[in-house]
């Protein structure tokens, strides 16, 4: 018996090897593709990061431009509209190159709003040009003043909620191929710019007139919380007839219907005070010496129960300020104010003095006599500036954790600017049975209570330049927005579209 002949399998090992070769080449090709893709992604990632740096550069360039405004010459004192020196808003005017060509200033116009910009390059008037930063990256940027009228009938003030929107892009060396751009878009939300009011409360604001019946506020008031006024309350101004505004975030209660009251769309919080640990306790050593035994240099506190003490012009920093009797005088001059800072209990200056949390307060039961208080139109209040840092808690920041209490003596005008945005503030004018001495200046606190029949806003804060320690235009928040299409331009008409 013979078998059927089988196939000739000569050379089959070659077939196996060839199969292995094909498999190997396939694996190699797959690996190569993966690496190439990885390199492509890495390259795109690099370009994307450059674009983000370019966007940041754009924001910085506009911040620099904005902060060139000669702010000391501006009047950020927001007295009732219509007074000749008052400016309710100011917007820089740009040209196409975003050069500031001047200031578009205006008192509130008949429409009750301020111009949102001017010049060929201003937002809303067209897209800005691109500015290169190097290594084929560039940015386009727009500044949005975000002005909002706070008032009605053409009276009131305007706040600014500025934003800067920047588009950074990497053109890959080919500016003609915009489809190949890699871009990032960033929106910088700036701190609201809102001129100082006569009275501001991060929390609730309460006005108590004499015997709880009547009070007059010569200026504007604002509270993020509830506003409570006596049955008879008028907010007016020295020029007569013009009405200030009351802006509130919560509820409003008063026996009389207040004209020009505005429900705020959002809250405006003043930045807390921050004092450098290196700031000396007295700007001149002799000033501390002149305070006498009322000043404790070891604990860095000021305490007075009797006698009299005069503060010479200059800066003073205390861990606690407690006046329960006696007379305190601030010998301010028009060119040299008295500035008193109350540091935080947590500061390096105060945390080791043994007082613990029982400090950080400013209490003046007999008031402080400002020698400039007799100037007309309450223009001397800025001669006495009082600052309270607060507890410096990170959350909540506005915690009423410290106290600022000033109680005036009858017959002595209390004239000062009190800046204590995180503190509970109580200011009381000196009153007799039927009459109260005037209060002047500005009060900024967390929960604020004013006990007075007349409070007049300092109308000459412009004589004392504001914001000398920080640019008025500074960023509070960055938001990264989706990349627009095309990636070479900011969206129009709203460059913040999609943010």
């Amino acid at each position, binding site marked *: 018996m013979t*078998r059927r002949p089988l196939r000739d399998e000569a050379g089959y090992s070659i077939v196996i090897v060839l199969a292995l070769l094909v498999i190997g080449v396939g694996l190699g090709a797959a690996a190569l593709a993966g690496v190439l893709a990885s390199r492509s992604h890495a390259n795109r990632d690099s370009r994307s990061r450059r674009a983000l740096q370019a966007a940041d550069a754009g924001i910085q360039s506009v911040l620099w431009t904005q902060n060139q405004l000669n702010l000391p010459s501006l009047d950020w004192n927001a007295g009732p509209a219509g007074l000749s020196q008052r400016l309710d808003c100011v917007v820089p005017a740009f040209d196409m190159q975003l050069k500031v060509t001047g200031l578009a200033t205006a008192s509130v116009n008949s429409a009750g709003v301020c111009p949102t910009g001017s010049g060929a390059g201003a937002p809303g008037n067209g897209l800005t040009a691109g500015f290169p930063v190097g290594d084929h990256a560039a940015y386009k940027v727009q500044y949005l003043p975000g002005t909002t009228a706070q008032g009605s009938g053409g009276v009131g003030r305007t706040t600014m909620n500025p934003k800067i929107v920047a588009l950074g892009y990497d053109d890959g060396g080919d500016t003609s191929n915009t489809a190949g751009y890699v871009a990032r878009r960033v929106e910088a939300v700036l701190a609201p710019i809102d001129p100082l009011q006569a009275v501001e409360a991060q929390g609730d604001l309460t006005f108590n007139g004499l015997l709880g019946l009547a009070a007059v506020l010569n200026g504007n008031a604002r509270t993020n919380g509830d506003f409570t006024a006596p049955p008879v309350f008028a907010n007016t101004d020295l020029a007569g007839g013009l009405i200030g505004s009351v802006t509130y975030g919560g509820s409003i209660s008063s026996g009389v219907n207040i004209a020009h009251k505005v429900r705020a769309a959002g809250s405006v919080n003043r930045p807390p005070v921050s004092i450098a640990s*290196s700031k000396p306790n007295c700007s001149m050593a002799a000033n501390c010496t002149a305070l006498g035994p009322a000043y404790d240099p070891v604990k860095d506190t000021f305490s007075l129960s009797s006698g009299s003490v005069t503060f010479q012009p200059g800066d003073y920093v205390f861990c606690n300020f407690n006046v329960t009797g006696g007379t305190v005088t601030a010998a301010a001059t028009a060119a040299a104010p008295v500035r008193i800072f109350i540091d935080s209990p947590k500061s390096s200056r105060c945390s080791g003095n043994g007082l613990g949390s029982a400090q950080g307060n400013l209490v003046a039961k007999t008031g402080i006599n400002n020698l400039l208080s007799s100037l007309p139109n309450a223009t001397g209040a800025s001669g006495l500036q009082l600052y309270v840092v607060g507890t410096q808690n990170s959350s909540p920041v506005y915690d009423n954790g410290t106290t600022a209490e000033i109680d005036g003596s009858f017959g002595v005008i209390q004239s000062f600017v009190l800046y204590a945005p995180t503190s509970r503030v109580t200011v009381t004018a000196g009153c007799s049975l039927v009459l109260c001495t005037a209060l002047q200046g500005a009060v900024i606190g967390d929960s604020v209570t004013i006990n007075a029949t007349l409070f007049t806003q300092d109308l000459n804060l412009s004589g004392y330049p504001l914001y000398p320690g920080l640019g008025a235009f500074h960023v509070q928040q960055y938001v990264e927005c989706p990349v627009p299409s095309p990636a070479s331009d900011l969206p129009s008409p709203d460059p913040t579209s999609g943010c």
Partner: protein
Amino acid sequence: MSHLRLTGRAVEETGNSVLEVIIAMFLALAVIAALAGAYVRNSDTSLAGQRQSDLLSIAERQIESVRQIVTQNGTFNAVALNAYPSAGMDPALPVNPSDPNDFVLNPGTPSASLLIESNYNHTTDGQISNVPAGGEPLLVNGANGVSGGQLPPLQYFDLVTSRLTASPPPADAFASVYTYVTQASGVTAGVASSCPACAGDLRRVVVAVKLQSSPGHAAFGANAPLYTSTLVSNPIPSNQASGAVGLRLGLNIK
């Protein structure tokens, strides 16, 4: 029953001759060797890509530290170099310089400046628009009224420990970090009459990062430095005099 015998056209298994086995082995080895080489290359390339990303992260980290230096030191003056960059290695600017200091003109002198290139890896593209032909002036302590600068022109980033050092790590792979600070130009300029002092409130920061190999380790990845740049503005504008008597707000009131 007779035994089966291979006859005629029965299975011829002589395909497994020695020669064919040798050829098959050779081909298999060749394939394996090629694959091994490819995988090694791919690994190096992948690592090079990772290094590229690392370099950019280092550059970004340096940019962010520059932004933070104002807050840490309480003064914008800190955004300046504390020493001059060294002179570049090349006597003439190459098309693709491997030394970032090649972009420094007049090194070591008060007139030192930095070319702001459209493409630092292709210098024939020239500088960006609106910058001086000789580059932007470098801001270095002790020159032209500059003081308080905190930024070294050259540092070293240890890729193993992720630490920035003043001298090259002796054993680890590292990257050289070059920092340049210039007086920014070519951006929006304000009205001169409103703030002549504000010209110094905007500074350009250019960071170049270059991978260096450690002894015994072959260099891989791009030999050309990686660049990134941005602008930094003074948060406390110069037009607000420190002697102002007005309401005092801001960071670390002094």
